[in-house]
C-alpha cells in the first residue's frame, strides 16, 4: 500500500469517533507526511546539469514496445505440436494403420499412417512430443519395426486371454531409440482395439514442483494430491477416450460431495472432476473403480520419463524434507500398478518408458534394468547384480522395480532404416536416392540405427 493511502486511513478513523490519532496531539502537523519509502526518488534533483549526460533507461524503452505476451502464450508456442507440413509431398501408397495388419509380420519395415480419430486421441493424451519430427511430414506416420510388432502381438494376445491378465513392462534404451514413439504406438493400437488409454505424458510435470500440492489428511506416510494436475488429467482421459467412455455408464454408488446422475456416462463423469478442483481426486478414484469394475474393456496405463518418479520429488514436506515421488497420490497409483501391488481386473498393460535426454540420476532404476537383462540372459544367484547393502539407497523404488519386464529398445535394423529413409525421400525431405550405400552410411553414422540420430543425420543437420 502506498504511504499516502495509509495516512488517509488514519485520518478517516479519527473522524469517525474512534480514539484520536497521534496527529492531534503533535505540536504541529507536517504539511507533507514523511514517506515510508526509503528510496531516493524525492531526493533526486531535476534534469541533469549542463555537460552531464542523462542515463537512458534502456530497459524501460525496450519494454514499452508492443503488447506483452499473455501468460502462458510463450510456453504454448514452445510446446506446440505440429503434425502436418503442407510443403511435404504426399507419400503415394502409404496406408493407414489397420486393426488387422497391426500384429502381422508382413508389416515389418513398413510405414503406416495414423488414422484421423486415432491422431486426435493421441493428441488429447499428449502422446506427440514437440521434439519429435512430426512437423516435417504431410501426415503423422510411424515405422512398424520388429519391436512394434512384438508389442502389438503382446496386446493382441492379452485381449484373447480367457482370464484377464495384467502385463507390466518398462521400455528402456539409449537416447533417441524411440521409446516414447513405442509408447505412442502402444496407445495407437489400444485406441484401435477400443481399450481405455490413460497416459501420464511426462512424469517430470508431477515431480518438479511446478503444480500445486496438498496433503491428504489421515495418511501415513503423508500423501499429497495434486488437484489441478488431476483435473487436467481427467479432462484428457475424457477427451481421448470419448468414443468408449460415452458408451459406458456409472454402475456403482460413490460417496461424493455433489449429487451425480445415476446413469451418467463415464466421459461426462470425468468432466465433472475436470471442472472442479476439489472433486478432481475423488472423482478420479471413483472413475478408476468404475473402469476396473466387471465388464469393462482392458486398460492401457502408461507413463513417460519413468526416471523422474524413481527418486525424491522437488516438493518439500511439513518437516522440510523432500517428498518421495511415491508419496504423491497419482504417482503412487501408477507405481502400484507397475509394481504389481494392484492389478487390472479386466486385463491390460501397464507401461513406462525411461528417458534418455535430461536424465535425472536414478541408480535404482539402472540397477533394475541391469537385473532384468541378467534374468533374460538366464543368470541366477550371485550373477544377478544386487544393490550394495552398504550404500544408502531408495528402498521404495527398489521394491517397486523388483520384478519387472524390461523391453530393451535398440537401434533399427538396416531394413528398417531403409524403410524410413525411403519414406523421408518420398516425402521430399531427403533429396537423395536411397540406395544401399546411403542406407549403410546413415545407419552407421546413427550409431547402429538409433532412429533419433538417423533423423538428425538425414533430415535435420544435413538438409
Amino acid at each position, binding site marked *: 500500500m502506498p504511504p499516502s493511502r495509509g495516512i488517509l486511513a488514519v485520518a478517516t478513523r479519527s473522524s469517525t469517533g474512534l480514539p484520536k490519532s497521534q496527529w492531534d496531539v503533535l505540536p504541529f502537523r507536517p504539511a507533507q507526511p514523511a514517506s515510508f519509502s526509503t528510496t531516493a526518488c524525492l531526493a533526486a534533483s531535476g534534469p541533469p546539469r549542463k555537460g552531464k549526460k542523462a542515463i537512458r533507461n534502456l530497459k524501460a524503452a525496450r519494454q514499452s514496445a508492443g503488447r506483452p505476451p499473455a501468460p502462458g502464450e510463450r510456453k504454448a508456442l*514452445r510446446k506446440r505440436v505440429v503434425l502436418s*507440413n503442407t510443403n511435404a509431398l504426399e507419400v503415394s501408397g502409404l496406408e493407414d494403420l489397420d486393426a488387422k495388419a497391426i500384429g502381422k509380420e508382413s508389416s515389418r519395415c513398413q510405414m503406416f499412417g495414423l488414422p484421423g480419430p486415432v491422431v486426435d486421441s493421441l493428441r488429447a493424451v499428449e502422446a506427440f512430443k514437440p521434439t519429435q519430427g512430426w*512437423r*516435417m511430414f504431410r501426415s503423422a506416420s510411424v515405422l512398424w519395426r520388429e519391436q512394434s510388432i512384438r508389442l502389438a502381438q503382446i496386446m493382441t494376445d492379452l485381449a484373447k486371454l480367457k482370464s484377464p491378465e495384467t502385463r507390466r513392462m518398462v521400455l528402456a534404451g539409449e537416447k533417441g531409440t524411440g521409446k516414447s514413439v513405442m509408447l505412442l504406438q502402444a496407445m495407437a493400437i489400444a485406441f484401435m482395439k477400443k481399450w481405455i488409454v490413460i497416459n501420464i505424458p511426462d512424469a517430470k510435470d508431477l515431480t518438479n514442483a511446478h503444480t500445486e500440492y496438498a496433503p491428504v489428511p489421515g495418511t501415513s506416510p503423508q500423501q499429497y494430491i495434486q488437484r489441478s494436475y488431476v483435473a487436467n488429467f481427467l479432462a484428457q482421459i475424457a477427451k481421448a477416450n470419448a468414443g468408449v467412455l460415452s458408451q459406458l455408464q456409472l454402475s456403482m454408488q460413490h460417496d461424493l460431495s455433489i449429487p451425480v446422475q445415476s446413469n451418467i456416462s463415464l466421459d461426462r463423469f470425468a468432466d465433472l472432476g475436470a471442472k472442479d478442483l476439489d472433486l478432481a481426486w475423488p472423482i478420479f478414484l471413483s472413475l478408476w473403480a468404475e473402469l476396473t469394475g466387471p465388464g469393462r474393456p482392458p486398460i492401457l496405463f502408461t507413463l513417460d520419463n519413468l526416471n523422474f518418479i524413481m527418486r525424491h520429488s522437488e516438493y518439500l514436506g511439513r518437516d522440510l524434507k523432500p517428498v518421495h515421488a511415491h508419496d504423491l497420490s497419482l504417482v503412487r497409483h501408477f507405481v502400484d500398478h507397475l509394481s504389481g501391488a494392484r492389478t487390472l481386473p479386466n486385463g491390460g498393460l501397464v507401461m513406462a518408458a525411461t528417458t534418455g535426454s535430461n536424465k535425472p540420476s536414478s541408480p535404482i532404476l539402472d540397477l533394475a534394468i541391469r537385473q532384468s537383462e541378467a534374468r533374460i540372459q538366464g543368470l541366477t544367484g550371485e550373477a544377478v547384480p544386487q544393490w550394495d547393502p552398504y550404500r544408502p539407497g531408495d528402498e521404495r523404488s527398489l521394491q517397486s522395480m523388483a520384478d519387472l519386464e524390461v523391453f530393451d529398445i535398440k537401434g533399427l535394423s538396416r531394413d528398417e532404416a531403409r524403410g524410413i529413409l525411403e519414406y523421408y525421400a518420398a516425402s521430399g525431405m531427403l533429396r537423395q536416392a536411397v540406395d544401399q550405400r546411403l542406407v549403410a552410411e546413415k545407419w552407421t553414422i546413427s550409431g547402429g540405427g538409433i532412429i533419433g540420430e538417423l533423423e538428425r543425420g538425414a533430415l535435420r*543437420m544435413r*538438409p
Partner: protein
Amino acid sequence: MSVSRPAQARFRAAIPIRPRFRPNFVIRSNRTFSDAKDDAKPSPEVKGPNMDQLPHVSEEAAATAKITGEKGPDLQQGTPIQEILQGDKSAQEHMPKVIKDEIKPSNPKGSRSFSTSARRPTETIPQPTTARQEPAVQETESLIPGIRIPTDHRLRQRYDPLVHQVTNLLMRDGKLGVAQRNMAEILNHLRTSPPPTPSPQRPLLPGSPPPSHLPLNPTLYMTVAIDSVAPLLRIRAERGAAGGGVALQIPIPLGQRQRRRQAVQWILDAASKRKNRGSGRGGFAQRVAEELIAVAEGRSGVWERRGVVHKLGVSARVNLNSKRR
C-alpha cells in the same frame, strides 16, 4: 681546310643521299594539309601489278547504262554483292561457298543473322553444391594393388558453402554446436513455412526457381534470399582525399563471399531486432528464418540497406578515377 681540295669533295653531304622512294599510289593518310606540288601523280610509264585493272562492276554498269541511256547503279553507294551476282549465272556457279551457303536457304522473314539487342551477362543462381553430389570418380593407379583410390579422395566440405558460411556467422562465443543447431532450425523453418510470394518491386535473382520449389530445398531457398539482397559493392571512405578533411567515398566491388557476408550480417541485425514470440531455445533461429522469408517476399528492411549502398555507389562513381594514396 684548304682550297686545293677537289670540288666533288666539297659538296659531299654528311648524310648520303638516297634515291627517293616513290610509291605507285598516293599516300594521303598522314596529311593534314594540301600541297599540289607534292601530289605527284603516278607516272603512266610506271605500272604496278595491280594497276592495270578493269573498273569496278558498278562503275562498269554505270558506264554501260550511260551509253544505253538507262539509269545505272548509284555510284555513291556500294552495291551489295548478292545483287551483283543475281543476274550473273557463271558468277553464281563460281562464287565462294560462304556466299552460296548464305544465299541458299532463304531466311524466314523477321529473322536476322545478327543480333541488334545488347545482351546482358545473365546472373545465375549458383546451385548449392553439396557433398552428396558425387563427383565423377576418376581412379588412378594405386600403390596398393587391388585397391583403387579415386583422385578426389580427400576431406570434402561437409556442408554447402553458404550453409557453412552462415553457420559461422551465426556462431557466438565459439559455440559451433549451438550455431549448427540454429542453422538446422532455420532450414527446418523454411521447409515448413508456406512458399514465399515475391514482390514485383523487389524480385528475386533472375533465374531463380519458382517460389513453390523453394521450401523443399531449404538450402536453395536461403541461397536465393541471401544472394538476392546481397550488395554488389561497398563504399570505402578515403580520408583526406577530397580535401578539407572530407573523406572521399569510393565504391569498391565485392566478391561473392563478401557480398553474402554483408547480406547475412544485415539479416542477422534485423533478426536480432525482431521480437521473440516464444520462449526457450531456438527463438533466434526462428527470427532469422522469418527474416529470410521477409527478404524473399520483399518485406524486409534489408532491401533498403542494400538500396542505400547502391545509390551511394552510383553517386560515388565519379570518385573512381581519383588516385589511391
